[in-house]
């Protein structure tokens, strides 16, 4: 069954921050969401700390987050039949989020990891005599 990544974006506008009371209500709703779709939600999802680093052409900066109106706050991995099913799950997420739904390409399938090293080893071995 295809897998999807749900990317949750929050606003950086302090005025859009929920109040403690609203957060408590949200917590309960999130928990209910996780329970409801526990069969579809895969392990590995997590929240992201607000700060970070940006490495661009070897130059490290503190990240582009300050400028952006939204930042990636958390992500979840889910399993669903197709985009319609994945979107249906995302739509039931509580709160006022922007959620990006992306299907995983499946590149990271097992038993392929050694190809680069073996192939490059073979090619270098083959070219050494010249």
């Amino acid at each position, binding site marked *: 069954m295809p897998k999807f990544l749900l990317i949750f974006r929050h606003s950086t506008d302090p005025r859009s921050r929920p*109040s*403690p*009371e609203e*957060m*408590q209500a949200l*917590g309960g709703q*999130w*928990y209910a969401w996780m329970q409801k779709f526990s069969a579809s939600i895969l392990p590995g999802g997590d*929240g992201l700390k607000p700060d970070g680093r940006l490495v661009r052409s070897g130059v490290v900066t503190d990240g582009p987050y300050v400028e952006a109106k939204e930042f990636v706050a*958390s992500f979840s991995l889910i399993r669903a039949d197709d985009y319609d099913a994945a979107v249906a799950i995302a739509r039931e997420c509580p709160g006022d989020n922007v959620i990006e739904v992306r299907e995983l390409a499946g590149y990271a399938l097992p038993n392929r990891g050694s190809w680069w090293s073996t192939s490059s080893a073979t090619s270098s071995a083959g070219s050494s005599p010249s």
Partner: protein
Amino acid sequence: MEHFFRHEFGRLVAVLTRSLGVRRLDLVEDVVQAALVQALETWARRGVPDDPAGWLYRTARNLAIDALRRERTHARALPHLADGGEREAPPEARFADEIGDEPLRLLFVICHEAVPDGSRVAFALRTLCGFSTAEIARGLLTTEANVQKRVERARDRLRDLDVDFASPAAPQLRARLDAVLAVIYLLFCQGCHATHADVPIRRDLCDEARRLAGMLAGHPAGDAPAVRALLALMCFHAARFDARVALDGGLVLFEQQDRSAWNWGDVREGMAWLARSAAGDELTRYHVEAGIAWEHCRAATFADTDWGRIAELYDVLDRIAPSPVHALNRAVAEAHRHGPQAGLDRLAAVAPEDVPARYPGWHAVVGELNFRLGRYSVAEGAWREALRWTSASADREFLRRRLDDCRRVPGLADDRERPRRSRRNDGAARRNTDSSG
């Protein structure tokens, strides 16, 4: 647990402010907010930990240390936090007259003389009670911008002063207790002015006021008869909350309230506080107002109300805390006892310069008493004036209904032909006979 996040917000802000100083309140609020966000993310995924309050404290504390480190100003403030280590046991030794409870301590700091009255309530709601600016604006019937301004002003004043948060000594506590009680009282009064749409938040204000007063009463700093009297007053009023609101959210006239819907647990609690408030020789406005509220609770039916006793108490109240509103309530009691004309005579005795022209309650009562005397055009004029100064939707609705009543009896000055008063009614007139202010 109900309001857990909100209450923890206030507690954590108070605790961290104590470590970092009032100066760093911005930072403290930010890290507490961030800790709640982390809790939201983590608890939804992993479930709520065994000790959620401790989890929140540790998270907020670590975030504060991180933030201070980033600022490189940690050299001064960090030792305070780092000292705590893993154990968060409060210091064992403490002077007997020192405030041990951080939220109470912060409340006393907020009531510093330099902080304007209007800012104290908004600031207490923000920092101590954990309400958002939008929620406070709804509760205080003002704009978010106004609330923001008041909160900022309080914060600026406290920052300028860099108030010694450590331990106001006992004499200072006593001196500031009046101001603390005034803030709690104001909080409660704001909550009592219930109107349709915002009933839930306003009920919260009342609950907060009771929570703070309860904390105060349980602490040596608040071990005073006035505190107990205020608690009694709030209990008696709270007992009637459920009966005040009709099923559709409108307000029910006091006369028509279903007394069996009153919360008798609250009444009993109020009686206990009232009995304990009798200690000492101090008679505060809270004592008198609690006495008035008790008289209302005590009457088996509206007709049984001892208006003579209530009128006396309003006289006492007006002496302790002179206010045209007290004179107004005194007049209402008089009207119940000796008829509408007696009430109007009382109002006529108030010096013209003392008449609160912009206070809708005054005009509403003048309208009601004249209406009962069959002077419909006078009543209409008074109610129009009341409407001019009224903003709450439920109050406006009530006044419009009464104005319609006036129009339905053109030229009639006969009591028998008087239109039946609407079954449900709003508190604009009634409210002024309550001591809730």
